[in-house]
């Protein structure tokens, strides 16, 4: 049998993830609708004053994005675990870390990227101007891949465990705090005239760190779950 290059294997896995997602469109759309619903609940909860909403907008949109990203994480490995394909991935000659990276990347493209594209529409509802919307989108673009990567650790740890959904959020949400702080902080820092470059650099640094470390931790966790 011809040995495939690593990049080819990763591409093939990502194509498969997309094919699976497109056949069950609900799994891609539900977190997105959830994101819109949660963000729309906040004005109903705190009142319609535009000054207050404007100040809250980056934080609210970021927290909603965190929760929406959590929703789809449970299924990252669960279906592959049930039908046995995860075991085949662990046994294959391709390093499991790279396959995990490919799966996390597809998770970002399927659940993070739609949030990035939907965020400006919700931002308009909160009265953010063009510049703030732009910064918000860039922070989400840099931050949501980190969410997928860190989330993959939690998804692997809670594989086949009782009450995995709630447990996953308990494990992962505290680890999301730095991303939340720098993501929502960038818009506020810009509004305060402090410049947002530092926040973006830190978000990028978190992304680089998690690209390197998260697949390692996830691989270890997956091998423990598959024992």
């Amino acid at each position, binding site marked *: 049998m011809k040995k495939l290059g690593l990049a080819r294997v990763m591409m093939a896995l990502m194509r498969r993830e997309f094919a699976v997602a497109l056949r069950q469109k609900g799994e891609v759309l539900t977190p997105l609708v959830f994101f819109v619903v949660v963000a729309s609940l906040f004005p109903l909860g705190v009142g319609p004053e535009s000054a207050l909403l404007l100040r809250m907008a980056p934080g609210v949109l970021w927290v909603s994005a965190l929760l929406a990203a959590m929703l789809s994480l449970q299924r990252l490995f669960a279906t592959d675990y049930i039908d046995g394909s995860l075991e085949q991935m662990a046994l294959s000659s391709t390093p499991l870390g790279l396959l995990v990276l490919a799966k996390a990347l597809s998770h970002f493209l399927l659940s993070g990227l739609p949030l990035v594209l939907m965020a400006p529409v919700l931002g308009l509802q909160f009265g953010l101007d063009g510049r703030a919307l732009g910064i918000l989108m860039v922070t989400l673009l840099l931050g949501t891949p980190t969410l997928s990567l860190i989330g993959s650790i939690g998804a692997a740890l809670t594989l086949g465990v009782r009450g995995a959904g709630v447990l996953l959020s308990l494990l992962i949400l*505290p*680890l999301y705090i730095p991303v939340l702080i720098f993501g929502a902080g960038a818009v*506020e*820092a810009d509004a305060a005239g*402090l410049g947002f470059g530092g926040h973006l650099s830190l978000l990028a640094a*978190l992304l680089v760190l998690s690209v390197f470390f998260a697949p390692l*931790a996830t691989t*270890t*966790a997956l091998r423990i779950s598959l024992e």
Partner: protein
Amino acid sequence: MNTRVIHWFKFASPQNFYNLAGRMWPWFATLATLLAGVGLWISFFVAPTDAQQGEGYRIIFVHVPASQMSMFIYIVMAAWAGFGLAFNTRLSGMMASALAPTGALFAFLSLATGALWGKPMWGAWWVWDARLTSELILLFLYLGFLALQASIDDPRRADKACAVLALVGVVNVPIIYFSVKWWNTLHQGASVSLTRSPTMASTMLWGMLIMVVACWMYAITIALLRVRTIILERERHTEWVKHAVE
């Protein structure tokens, strides 16, 4: 060649460690009781009343040791978890799970005493200060560890999964701490500066140091007692446990 080598891995066997812990814990318990007695006596009767804070400051003698222990225990727990993954020893995972509830208790105690102290001093039970917030997040990390441990039935798998979680957590703790600190300085809310360290009377310092050591001894005692229980529970099918509990 007459060098004496201590075979440390001898104690990696649960049976040997069960006996060792049984011999050690009374010593630590005695030390903990004595030191806590002396420390509390100094903190209530010897240490002078603070010029600014009056008698209310005396909660520091519980608050500071509890905060320190909550952080140290997490690191120690992660270290045991790392040993467990590296050497594949059963005992390491048991030690990590024996430490976790004590760490969570200290984190909670630190937050509770902090709130009790904050109310008379700053007029608020809670402020979103960097230290308070990171202590709260540390408590969440402990609770996550305990919840993961509780929801996996196979103890070996639970130990390993929790080990990965503890190591991921220990890498994240500094990142979380500094991000919370920066978040706090950006907001400049009604925060109170906790970092200025007033010069302490030496009796206050001694009282606090003795209380810190007492908390260490307490934590070690409880961890040893708890690990003994865990060993008995997990090794219940073996012969030696049947003899040990007779």
